[in-house]
């Protein structure tokens, strides 16, 4: 899906995964131009998998910046392994993305 941009690069034994998710991450405390509160809308759970094994399980609050950016690292990935991301937000909306590990 287009809502996640990902990259996974293997350098030596370590794979660096960078990702950006398009998401407003509204806290529920911000007001719009006419002074009305903008309802909270933020990602709560994110799971990262290497092939089919979970490697990183995340719980996020409203304190993660808009369009969340994350880098994480694996010592268990090989070239062409699949790294995938799934998220669900407080409104029950979901998103996912996947990428193959390439040489850095």
């Amino acid at each position, binding site marked *: 899906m287009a809502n996640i941009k990902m990259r996974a690069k293997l350098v030596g034994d370590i794979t660096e995964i960078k990702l950006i998710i398009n998401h407003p991450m509204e806290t529920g*405390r911000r007001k719009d131009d006419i002074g009305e509160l903008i309802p909270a809308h933020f990602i709560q759970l994110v799971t990262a998998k*290497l092939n089919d094994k979970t*490697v*990183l*399980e995340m719980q996020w609050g409203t*304190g*993660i910046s808009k369009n969340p*950016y994350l880098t994480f690292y694996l010592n268990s990935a090989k070239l062409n392994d699949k790294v995938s991301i799934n998220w669900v937000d407080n409104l029950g909306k979901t998103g996912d993305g996947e990428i193959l590990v390439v040489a850095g």
Partner: protein
Amino acid sequence: MQRRYFLSIVLGSVTACLIAPINAFAAIWNKQAFEATKFSNAANDLAINNEVQSQDIDINAPDRAENGAIVQVEINSRIPNTESIAIFVEHNPTTLIGHFTFANGALPQLVIRIKMAETSDVKLVVKAGNQYFTAAKNVVVLENGCG
């Protein structure tokens, strides 16, 4: 008998399809911890106790952030058997920022961008076995990022 067997398969697979999307997220969002306004309450809700200061946790964050809406924080735990890291901003309206659990070769190391409402410590709590370790870094915020 055969029909009953067939029905059990059909019903079984329908149930499996309904359950599968939920199972994709084994973790449950800790509502209480994320809604807590004080570090001590959020820490309690995450079962954090007796956390001790550690030199083996690195936090790399700017000394001064122009805009609190995007503060990049680099985190690394050198504590053996680190299982999870929780990030807190003590002076944010809600103090818990995120909770990260590592498995299957994920290193306890992250780069993430967070919001800061005002000047505050960014505090990390690392869980290793049954022990908790902590480190903090103060970030001066010039413009509120929580709105």
